[in-house]
């Protein structure tokens, strides 16, 4: 039986000095920024607003709604189902496709007022080992109540999309423990529709219900 080592992840935003004032410039930016910028703009809300519900749109959708007032496009961009994507390149291409399709059909190009441009930001990521180690499901459930939201975030979101591991770290460990149903249930969650604290509660409930079986 292997242990589960809880890690945590911290981000430092890196300013790229690139800005967009309309959709063509947003598209050009999305096409050229580093992957970590696509990641940052689609996950920042989870980290910064992890208490808000209903939420979160991604940064692109928020800007398109609040600054450009392009509601139809914003809805399309905010409804991109991030959980379906296995890599950041695939996610980037989805945004590119949506924006290109919009530009082909639109007759006008609204511009952001001065000072409200979209600023592209990337992220430097730090992964730290925490002192929390679970030797069995019981310890895992107890630690889940104490680890930071950064730790939850790392094992659920980061492992799957940015590190391209296919499945989140918790499900993989549950599977190793022979807890297949628990692993499947956690893998099937759409974590993007929970706040981080809500996700923590859901995970605790699943582990307590299905971990003993």
């Amino acid at each position: 039986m292997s242990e589960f080592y809880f890690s945590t992840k911290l981000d430092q935003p890196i300013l790229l000095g690139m800005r967009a004032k309309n959709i063509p410039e947003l598209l050009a930016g999305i096409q050229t920024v580093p992957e970590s910028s696509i990641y940052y703009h689609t996950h920042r809300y989870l980290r910064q607003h992890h208490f808000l519900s209903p939420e979160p749109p991604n940064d692109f959708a928020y800007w398109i709604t609040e600054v450009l007032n392009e509601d139809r496009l914003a809805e399309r961009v905010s409804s991109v189902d991030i959980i379906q994507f296995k890599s950041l390149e695939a996610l980037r291409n989805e945004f590119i496709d949506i924006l290109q399709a919009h530009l082909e059909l639109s007759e006008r190009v609204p511009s952001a007022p001065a000072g409200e441009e979209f600023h592209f930001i990337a992220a430097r990521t730090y992964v730290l080992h925490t002192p929390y180690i679970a030797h069995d499901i019981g310890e895992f459930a107890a630690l889940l109540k104490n680890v930071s939201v950064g730790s939850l975030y790392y094992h659920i979101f980061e492992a799957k999309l940015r590190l391209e591991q296919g499945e989140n770290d918790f499900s993989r460990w549950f599977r190793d423990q022979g807890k297949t149903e628990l692993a499947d249930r956690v893998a099937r969650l759409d974590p993007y529709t929970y706040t981080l604290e809500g996700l923590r509660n859901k995970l605790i409930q699943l582990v307590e219900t299905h971990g003993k079986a």
Partner: protein
Amino acid sequence: MVKLEDYIPIVGAATVDELRLLAKHLEQKKIQNINSTAVGGGVAEILTRMIPLLNQMGVQARWDVIKGDEKFFAVTKKFHNGLHGVPTTVSNDEYEWFLEINRQNAEEMQFEDVVFVHDPQPVALIEKRQHIGKNWIWRCHIDFSKPDKNIWKFLEQYITRYDSAVFSAPAFARRLPIPQVLIAPSIDPLSDKNKELDEKYIDSVFERFKIDRSMAVVTQISRFDYLKDPVGVIKAYKLVRQHMDLQLVLAGGGATDDPEGPAIMQHVQEEAAGDKNIHVLFLPPGSDLEINALQRGSTIVLQKSLKEGFGLTVSEALWKGKPTIAGAVGGIPLQIAHKYSGILTHSIEGTAHWIKQLINEPEFARRLGVNGKEHIKNNFLITRHIKDYMLLFIALFHEGDVVSL
């Protein structure tokens, strides 16, 4: 003295544990902060509170202040205005004196492993790097969105010699060959300006200023400065007054070094004349507890700025759970997600509309306040600021975009 543990009831043990984990990776490093003033201003305020906390965690942090004469500070004041977009001319002699003072300071100083230089005044200390090496970071605390071209060109040749530059808001970033890190400023929830207050004390402050707490109170705390738009705030209040009873509080210090100060004051007083529900309060320095009480006792807090560096008064209001309406300028959109954690406005009419809306819909207003407080807790408290600085220092000793510790 405030202890790191004192923050646990506010931000949680996991957050403080993370800080300690990070601090372990800096145990052998000495961090040297350098700025140009030991007292007054946001930089001195944050360093005063942050350095003891870093040292408690085993990070050896210190703080040095450069020395300069009147002529030097007159030049750096010109830089400050120019970087804020005010047309300014700096002569060659003045640039030369600025460099001379920096060189004199560099000769007298002992430099540590990480040299963390704040704002433009000591920026040219970097000339010393070619002789002594070390790791150098430049931290810009001011609004840099539309700098005077000549002053920027002069400073750029020094800034680009640093390992990284740090800015408070995305709009201040420029195309630079060095990494630019986004680190927002912060508030300290244990300071007099932000700590919890007894309801009786809040009542006593309102009584002292003759403000009636049984009627809605809309408050803006800021310097009397055109860029904070106090006259626009009064105009918005007058639009709301047509539909409901309310009081307006405009409270702040006079800007004694601002030549426009008296004219603004006169304008504000003319605009407020004859309305007993407008309270214009001049608060002396050291009125942090009164400001805290005024914010806590208000129904709505405004920050209707036309231009703003970061606008930390917004964080102060949100931290107190207050529904906040603020101009969408500078760092304010980082603090408020419109209609989630506060309201962003662009006009006097928009401000008036939202004041009415929030007074009439207290449940919506309450929810904005709850969300706003959580947002500040997660992103704009001193603990997050310390974390960001430690990450920045750690990155100096690691390559790449993913740092495994």
